[in-house]
């Protein structure tokens, strides 16, 4: 089976996601990068479930999808909150507190 290729895809997506979180300054793009990491987790889980022939990975992936949706809901609400108050969602401008 193509398990190794799936794992490779997962690893690549993970790296792109981590790069995006670190390098991007736009809050929505950072959120999307985090989603990429979560999707790489799902790909990993499904690939392993396929290889091992157990249902645990499928269940885990469903939980990850559901929780990720809840997380993004909160995250977008928070980005909206910041946008209303500052008219900008650039993360490097969020520097009220220092030290």
């Amino acid at each position, binding site marked *: 089976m193509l398990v190794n290729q799936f794992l490779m895809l997962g690893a690549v997506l993970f790296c792109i996601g981590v790069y995006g979180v670190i390098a991007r300054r736009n809050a929505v793009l950072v959120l999307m990068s985090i989603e990429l990491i979560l999707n790489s*987790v799902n790909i990993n889980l499904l690939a392993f479930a396929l290889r091992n022939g157990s249902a645990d990975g499928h269940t885990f992936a469903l939980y990850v999808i559901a929780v990720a949706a809840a997380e993004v809901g909160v995250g977008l609400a928070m980005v909206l909150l910041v946008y209303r108050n500052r008219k900008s969602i650039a993360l490097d401008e969020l520097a009220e507190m220092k030290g």
Partner: protein
Amino acid sequence: MLSSLLSVVAASDWVSPTIDYHALAPEIVLAAGIVIVLLVDLFTSETNKWLVAPLASFSLLGAFIPVVTIALSDNTMRELFDGRYVVDEFSLVIKGLFILAGYVVVLISTDYLREGDYYQGEYWFLVLTSILGMVMMASSRDLVSIFVALEFLSIPAYMLAAWRKRDLKSNEAGVKYYLLGVFASAIMLYGMSLLYGIANSTLLTDIGETLSSEMTSIRALAILFVIIGFAFKVSAVPFHTWAPDTYEGAPTPVTAFLSVASKAAGFVALVTVIYVAFPYASDVWQPVIWILSVLTMTVGNVLALRQTNFVRMLAYSSISQGGFILMPLAVAGEGTTGQSALRAVVVYLMLYAATNLGVFAIVIAVARKTRSGAIASYGGLFSYAPGLAALMTIFMASLAGIPPLGGWFGKFAAFQAVLSAETNWGYAIAVIGAVNSVVAFGYYGNVLREIWMRPVPDGDTAPVVIQPAIAVALGITGVATLVLGTLPGIVSHFGDLASLSSAFSG
């Protein structure tokens, strides 16, 4: 893919699991309380909204009753769902800690919220939900339930940090906490997916057995990712950058909640994973925890020394305390040290919770009068609020680890565990910890100097009004700090937890 899933499901005969409702009673009571709090807030008129806060505290106290009854029953080792959800002595002690800490947080929030710029009942709903997640975390022994419990406790906490919607600092606190928290759980999940692939099971005990064979690089990577995920949660250096900003920007009761309960939940998850899933992989995580612990206590201390804002100083102080809690874990895999390291972590968490919540109760009471967060605004506190000044002295001395106060015994247990390992790494970290606890006197002493020796900055010596709820919170935390320090036998009794540490002795 679906066909493979269906074939797996069809192959096993579905048996409905037997559920021990007594073991689940704390969670059920709390869940019922959450629904009641939400509905009451929704359907009562503006004049009756005060009802919600007492309801929240009653549902916490109600959830505490089954914790006690399970502890007093003959059977304190209850496994549910094939050992994926375990109610044992460790989880009972931790559940009690979370519920009582949540109760104190509700007490110190009541008047703060009522006098804030606006009132919203969802606050209680979010606090209770987060506590339910923590209570579930204490029992989780499976990757899926640990992940769900972690998100359960984190997502409401993100919203609580951004509670003051029109305040730029609070927004910033929420966004930073959210982004780094979600990033950390994503990294942790990647590690968990690798662990699942290695062990072909999400059950922690199965993972522990699989890891006992050989150590490959992919296994080490999985362990590393999971530990990094929890290191964010407990704000261990170098994953601490969110903590000072979030603690300063969030409303003060929320900061108290995050720095005590949320942090403790991270430690509980870390301990569970290390003791149940990684007991045979100590070659991998011991050096990681050692480095994290040393960095955390040192960097936290050094940065705390130069703070002028009291809450921000407390944030760095809590980072540094986190380093001390990590310290015994750095040697937990050496011989029979596992038992005493577990006891040290549990004892330290309890004493730290009591002391730190007390400090925040005083901060809320004093800031109500001075409207300032600067350490200098505490100047001359003794002259107009001698009671608060005396309590603050007790709490600061406890955080610094002066006998016979609570924090001293926590540090004592941690050093005892580290030294009992009798390894060079253990001795080295003990020396670094000792130096750091001396450095910590610098900033704790600075607060005491302001309180006792400096003049009142604006000359306003009107007494501080202490509301009843804050007074009760101060009473609970003050008594806990004093009694647990002078009679350490009480608290160390809670730390004798055979069930979780059995993996190390065997």
